[in-house]
């Protein structure tokens, strides 16, 4: 009996010690900054560092972006170029796989291994800003007025609480990809420019076998891919609806009939016209690139992968069909500076950011990555506008939108769930739509409640 008591007290003691230990390591969060500034290993990886006899103090900064071979390669070259221009700044690039990007960033940052410039998807910015992780871009180098004058309006998605927290080198828009061979086969001469024409053409282009199974999709249909964006920044505003209230707190999809009309239009491709379905050849881009989908709504970023892996695909690109108004979804990856970057490092990071947003780099970015220049003056050059593939993407930039996201993954999941309610559970389109609006609104309410609490 006594034995048991002894064990009990030992384990309780152990538990208390452990909890205390847990608490104490808690308070060490602030030591991040110190570790951040120390970072001795960078200099060692740059053998040229000591050879340069610069009078000023040498600064090394770290740049993080996701693992996209073409981007990684280009940034490496740009770093070399930048370092010749600024001999006392050393830049080190670190990459993480796309799937694990958020996870890696989130686990490494608390461990005191943070970047000085970080490349983030614009839809993640509110999450990072709400966490207090980013600082607004330095006003003297990136004045708000100038950003709004030089850049396409979609970049405004990076403006939170009146300040820009990130700035992109390049942006992407969606467009209608079409398979030329399949269009010829269906004898379609003119590309669809209206909602109706898109429906008609996709019906003509659809091919099914004797058992009613898809052989070729008229229009690839994958809610988990680009359709969510197509709805919010394409169909909805095209039908005359609005995405969000001015203060970004209220979802306005259901405030006009346009919201439901656009949602119905999108779903009809799968449930009424039956010209495409989710999961056919895994996803839309797979089906299209392998020639099993005649039309697909996809982004300019797809140009690169088609060029690389499906060089023989005979395809073209056209602006998205429109309805009452024109509107094209767009998105971007932008570079931001974490809050704990200060002093010389901040100066160096700003310098590098200026370099990354320069005209030369934007032009290199189009050529090598296929993403569109973020600045109007660069993008609107003849060589891009007249390009057969790039042109349609660029001409759409003027009426492009990139909606504000609270949480990209969750908002997309809710949208996919709503389409599944209709497809699988046979819920009415209207009910699925109203539930979707309510659920997204709830997400926004929770986010703003959290933000308001911090103020």
């Amino acid at each position, binding site marked *: 009996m006594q*034995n048991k008591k*002894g*064990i009990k007290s*030992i384990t309780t003691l152990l*538990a208390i010690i*452990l*909890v205390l*230990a*847990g*608490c104490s*390591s*808690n308070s060490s*969060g*602030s030591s*991040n900054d110190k570790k951040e500034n120390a970072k001795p290993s960078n200099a060692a990886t740059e053998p040229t560092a000591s050879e340069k006899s610069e009078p000023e103090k040498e600064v090394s900064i770290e740049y993080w972006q996701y693992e996209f071979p073409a981007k990684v390669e280009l940034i490496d070259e740009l770093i070399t170029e930048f370092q010749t221009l600024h001999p006392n700044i050393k830049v080190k690039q670190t990459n993480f796989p796309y799937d694990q990007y*958020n*996870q890696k*960033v*989130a*686990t490494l*940052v*608390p461990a005191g291994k943070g970047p000085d410039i970080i490349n983030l998807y614009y839809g993640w910015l509110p*999450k*990072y800003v*709400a*966490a*207090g*992780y980013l600082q607004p871009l330095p006003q003297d180098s990136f004045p708000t007025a100038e950003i709004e004058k030089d850049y396409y309006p979609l970049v405004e998605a990076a403006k939170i609480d009146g300040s820009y927290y990130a700035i992109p080198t390049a942006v992407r828009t969606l467009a209608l990809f079409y398979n030329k061979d399949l269009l010829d086969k269906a004898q379609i001469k003119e590309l669809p420019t209206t909602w109706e024409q898109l429906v008609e053409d996709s019906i003509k282009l659809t091919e099914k076998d004797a*058992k009613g*199974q*898809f052989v070729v999709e008229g229009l690839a249909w994958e809610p988990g891919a680009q359709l969510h964006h197509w709805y919010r920044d394409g169909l909805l505003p095209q039908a005359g609806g609005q995405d969000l209230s001015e203060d970004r707190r209220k979802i306005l999809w259901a405030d006009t009939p346009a919201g439901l009309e656009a949602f119905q239009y999108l779903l009809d491709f799968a449930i009424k016209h039956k010209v495409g*379905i*989710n*999961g*056919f*050849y*895994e996803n839309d881009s797979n089906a299209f690139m392998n020639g099993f989908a005649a039309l697909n709504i996809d982004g300019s970023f797809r140009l690169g992968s088609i060029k690389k892996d499906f060089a023989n695909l005979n395809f073209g690109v056209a602006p998205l069909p429109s309805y009452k108004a024109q509107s094209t979804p767009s998105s971007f990856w932008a570079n931001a500076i974490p809050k704990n970057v200060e002093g010389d490092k901040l100066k160096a990071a700003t310098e590098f950011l200026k370099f990354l947003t320069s005209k030369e780099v934007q032009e290199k970015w189009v050529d090598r990555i296929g993403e569109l220049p973020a600045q109007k003056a660069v993008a609107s050059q003849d060589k891009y506008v007249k390009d057969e593939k790039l042109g349609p993407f660029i001409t759409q930039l003027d009426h492009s939108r990139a909606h504000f996201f609270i*949480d990209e*993954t*969750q908002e997309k*999941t809710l949208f*996919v*769930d709503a389409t*599944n*309610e209709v497809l*699988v*559970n046979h819920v009415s389109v209207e009910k699925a739509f109203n539930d979707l609006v309510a659920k997204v609104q709830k997400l926004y309410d929770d986010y703003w409640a959290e933000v308001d609490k911090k103020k």
Partner: protein
Amino acid sequence: MLTHVIRLTARKSRELFRVRLSYQTQRYLFIYIVLGIPLLYFLSTRMLPIFYAFNVSVREWNLLSSEKPFVGFENFSTIFSDEIFSKSILNTFKFVLIGVPGQLIAGLAVALLLQSIYRFRGFFRTIYFIPYVTSIVAVSWVFRWILMRNGWLNEVLLQLGIEPQLFLQSPRQALILVTLTMIWQSIGFQMLVFMTGLEAIPRMYYEAASIDGASGWRKFVHITLPLLNPVIVFSAVIGVISYLQSFGQVLSMTNGGPLNSTTTMVLYIYNLAFQQFKMGRAAAATVVLFAIILVLTLLQLKVLNKKVEY
């Protein structure tokens, strides 16, 4: 086992303080120190994070921020009012209820079959074991392609004149299919455990039963099953824990969809922690999972672990 060690340590340490060390004590001391080293490791990499998670669960912590204010049980009330969390608990239990019996029965069946052959036994054992050592992601993707809307299995169904199925895109079928994938992958491990158990049953019981004229089924029910009990208990406990922690296959095959029909507790925790950065809530969900595992394991040990005399 662990409590036994602790009890012994406690007794020994009392003796230590009382008298000078005898040779025997010194010997034991040495053994316990050696045994204690991995224990230390276990404490620092397993136990410490568990207690740290308890600590985090009562705080609001955005993974990217350095502030972790204390919020009491707010995280718990938040997750329990989230219908996806309740759904994930329910799904997790479905995984356990289908997965554990499925894995035990399939593993035992394969083990019994393998035990009754002599030729190619090693060959088949290897074949069955291969899935277990194959990467979860690779296996998941192969099954995804087989189960794709216009995939191989639907092709077969069409040939047979059966309507093609939604499979992983159906909220009704997805969970079962993911569980079956998990069972398929763990048959090898289960088979090996049972084969070892079967080897340990003395042949003479079967011989005696044969002389008494017992049928194969009766031998199985009255000899094999009772004598395998420790192995079954071990497998059930390990199986329940591993199915309670279902994650890899779910993430790769359905990512919790469609309509959250396959979201498990661990996936829910992962999404909260690493997609939404809400560590406090994730830790709260972890504590709930920890409690469930603890209770279920204790229950199983109590219920299943009957002594078998022979």
